[in-house]
C-alpha cells in the first residue's frame, strides 16, 4: 500500500524477458493438510527466483511439483509454454539440485555427472567431452575419479550442481543449495552461483528459508506462508516495501507499532500509536479510511539515536538504553520506553574509537525520517 519509487537501482537488472514458467492456481493437498494453496506465479526466463518461507510453508512442495515428484491436486504448471502438470520427472526439461545433494555414493564424480547424459543416449566421446567441460566449470577437474565420500561439503555441492547443469536444462531447481555449507563457504558459493547462472543463462528457482541467501541470490523473491504466496518482488521491494505484517516481520527485523490513522491526506498520514508518545508522520498517502487500525513498521537501522531531543515534534520518542550488542560491523541497541516496550535500533560502527558512544542506561531520543515507516493494514 505504500507508494514506491518506480525503479529500484541497487538490483541487478532482470532482462524484461518473456515468461518461462507459469504456475496457475496450483494447490496440493496431502489428506486434510493443504501444503500449497492456490498459488499462481510467473517466472521469467533467465532470472533467479527465490521461494522464501519458514519450514512447512509449502515452498519445497511447490518445487517438487515443478520437478515432477508431486502432481498438483488442482491447477496447471506450464514450462516454456507446455503443460507439464502430468509429465513424469524424467521427461521434463528441468533439473534439480537436492538439499542433500543426493550424489550417487557408488559412483565417482565423473560417473555422477555423466549419469544424466547417459540417459540421453549420447555417444561416449560426447559424454566425456561434456563431463570434462562441466567439471572444469565448477573447478573439480582433478577430483573426477573420487567417490562422493572422499569430497568435502563444498566439493559435493559443486558436483551436485555440475550433475544438474551438465544436461543443459533451461530451468534449474535448487533446494536449499547452500544449506549444508558453513558460513564462510556459503558467502563465497553464493557469488559463484550467481556468476554461473549469468554465464549459462539458466533460469534458477531457489527454495530457501534463509533470507540472507534469498536476498543475495534472487532477482525476485516470492515469500510464502502457510501454502500461499504472500508477496512477490525484488529483494529491495520485499525489504523496504513489505505489504503485510508477516513479510515485514519475516524479512529482517522490524519494530512494529499498532495505531489508529488520525489524518489521511494524499501527501502524508498521521498515525497515533498508543505505545508511542508522539504521532507518527509518514510522508506519503495511503488508501485507508481514517480511524482504521494500521501497523507502523520501522526497521532498526532507520532509527537514529541522540542524547539531545531532536527539534521535531513528531517521529521522536524518548527511552533508556537497556542492552547493547556489539556485532563488529554494527551494534544493536535495545531501548526501553516508559511503557516497557523495547525498540531495536542498529547503528553502524563507523569509527574504531568512539569514546562518547551512547552507553548502557543512558536516556536517549529515538527519531526517524518521515520516509522510513511502512504503514501496513494487515
Amino acid at each position, binding site marked *: 500500500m505504500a507508494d514506491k519509487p518506480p525503479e529500484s537501482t541497487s538490483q541487478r537488472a532482470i532482462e524484461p524477458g518473456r515468461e518461462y514458467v507459469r504456475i496457475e492456481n496450483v494447490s496440493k493437498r496431502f489428506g486434510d493438510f493443504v501444503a500449497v494453496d492456490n498459488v499462481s506465479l510467473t517466472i521469467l526466463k533467465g532470472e533467479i527466483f527465490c521461494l522464501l518461507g519458514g519450514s512447512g510453508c509449502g515452498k519445497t512442495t511447490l518445487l517438487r511439483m515443478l520437478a515432477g*515428484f508431486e502432481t498438483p491436486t488442482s491447477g496447471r504448471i506450464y514450462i516454456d509454454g507446455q503443460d507439464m502438470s502430468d509429465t513424469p520427472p*524424467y521427461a521434463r526439461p528441468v533439473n534439480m539440485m537436492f538439499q542433500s545433494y543426493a550424489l*550417487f555414493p557408488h559412483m565417482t564424480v565423473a560417473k555422477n555427472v555423466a549419469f544424466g547424459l547417459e*540417459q540421453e543416449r549420447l555417444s561416449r566421446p560426447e559424454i566425456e567431452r561434456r563431463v570434462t567441460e562441466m567439471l572444469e566449470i565448477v573447478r573439480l577437474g582433478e577430483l573426477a575419479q573420487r567417490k562422493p565420500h572422499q569430497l568435502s561439503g*563444498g566439493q559435493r555441492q559443486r558436483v551436485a550442481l555440475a550433475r544438474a547443469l551438465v544436461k543443459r536444462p533451461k530451468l534449474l531447481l535448487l533446494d536449499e543449495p547452500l544449506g549444508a555449507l558453513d558460513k564462510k563457504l556459503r558467502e563465497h558459493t553464493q557469488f559463484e552461483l550467481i556468476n554461473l547462472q549469468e554465464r549459462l543463462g539458466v533460469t534458477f528457482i531457489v527454495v530457501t528459508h534463509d533470507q540472507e541467501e534469498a536476498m543475495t541470490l534472487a532477482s525476485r523473491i516470492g515469500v510464502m506462508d502457510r501454502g500461499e504466496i504472500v508477496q512477490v518482488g525484488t529483494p529491495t521491494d520485499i525489504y523496504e516495501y513489505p505489504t503485510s505484517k508477516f513479510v515485514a516481520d519475516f524479512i529482517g527485523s522490524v519494530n512494529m507499532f499498532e495505531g489508529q490513522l488520525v489524518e489521511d491526506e494524499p501527501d502524508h498520514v498521521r498515525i497515533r500509536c498508543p505505545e508511542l508518545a508522539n504521532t507518527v508522520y509518514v510522508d506519503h498517502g495511503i488508501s485507508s479510511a481514517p480511524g482504521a487500525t494500521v501497523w507502523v513498521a520501522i526497521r532498526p537501522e532507520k532509527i537514529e539515536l541522540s542524547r539531545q531531543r531532536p527539534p521535531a515534534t513528531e517521529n521522536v520518542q524518548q527511552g533508556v538504553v537497556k542492552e547493547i550488542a556489539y556485532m563488529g560491523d554494527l551494534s544493536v541497541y535495545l531501548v526501553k520506553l516508559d511503557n516497557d516496550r523495547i525498540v531495536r535500533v542498529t547503528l553502524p560502527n563507523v569509527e574504531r574509537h568512539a569514546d562518547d558512544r551512547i552507553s548502557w542506561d543512558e536516556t536517549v531520543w529515538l527519531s526517524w525520517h518521515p520516509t522510513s515507516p511502512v504503514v501496513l493494514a494487515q
Partner: protein
Amino acid sequence: MKSRGWFRHSVLALGLAFLYLPIVSMIVFSFNNSRLVTVWDAANSPTLKWYRLLLTNEQILGAAWMSIKIAAMTATGAVILGTLAGLALVRFGAFRGRAFLSGMTTAPLVMPEVITGLSLLLLFVALEQLTGWPQGRGMLTITIAHVTFAMAYVTVVVQSRLTGFDESLEEAALDLGARPAKVFLRITLPLILPAIVSGWLLAFTLSWDDVVISQFVAGPGSSTLPMVVFSKVRLGVSPDINALATIMVVIVATGVLLSTWWMRRQERRRAREVQMARRDDQ
C-alpha cells in the same frame, strides 16, 4: 584392581569354553584313530584316516553336493522374492493388505519348523493329486520349502536396509532422465546390494543346516547332508562325522574371518578418506 582383572579373565574363559569346547573336542576327536568316538587312541593318533574315508564315501559326498545345490537355489529364490517383498513393504506406502503382507512375511520367523514342514508336505501332496505337480517329493520340494522360510529372513534384512535409504537418490536419477526401471537397476539395486548379499548368505546357511523341514518334504534319494548326518548319528556317532563337521567348521570360520577382516579394512580406509576430504574446505 588386580582381583577385578582376574575375575574378568575367568568369566571370559568360562564363556569361551562354554561356546567352543564342544567344537574343539569334536575337532580333536576327528583325528582320533579309534572307532569309538569317546576313546582316545593315543598310540596311533593323530591320523587323517577319517578324512580319507570321508572322501570315498559316495553317500556323504552326494548329500553334500545335493545340499549345496539346494542351498544355492534357495538363496537365489529367497533373495528375489524377499527383495520384492521388502521393496513393497517399505516403498509402496499404506497399500491395502500391507499389514497382512508384513505379518505373513515375518510369520515363518516364529512358526515352529515342525508345523511349517508338515503344512508344506500336506500342500505338496494335495497339489500333486489335483494337478500332478510337483511329481513326488525331492530336490524341488525341498527347495520350495526352504525358499518359503528363508525368504522371511531376506525380507527383514532388505527391509532394514531400505528403511535407511535416502530416497532423494532415486529422485535425482529420475530427474536426470532415467526411467523407473533404470533407476532401480542403476541406483537402488547397487546400493542395497550389501543387504542382498548378506541375505543370500543367510538364506544359504539356513537352507544348508535345515533338518526338520527337509525331513518332511524330502523324498527317496533326496537326502541333504544334515539329514544324512542326523540319520547316521542315530545309529551311533561315527568318527567320520567328526571329520565332516571339522571340515565344515573350518570352511565357515575362514569365510567369517576373511569377510570381517575385509570389512574392517574398508571401514578404516573410508574413515581415513572422509577425514582427508573434510580438510579440503579449510
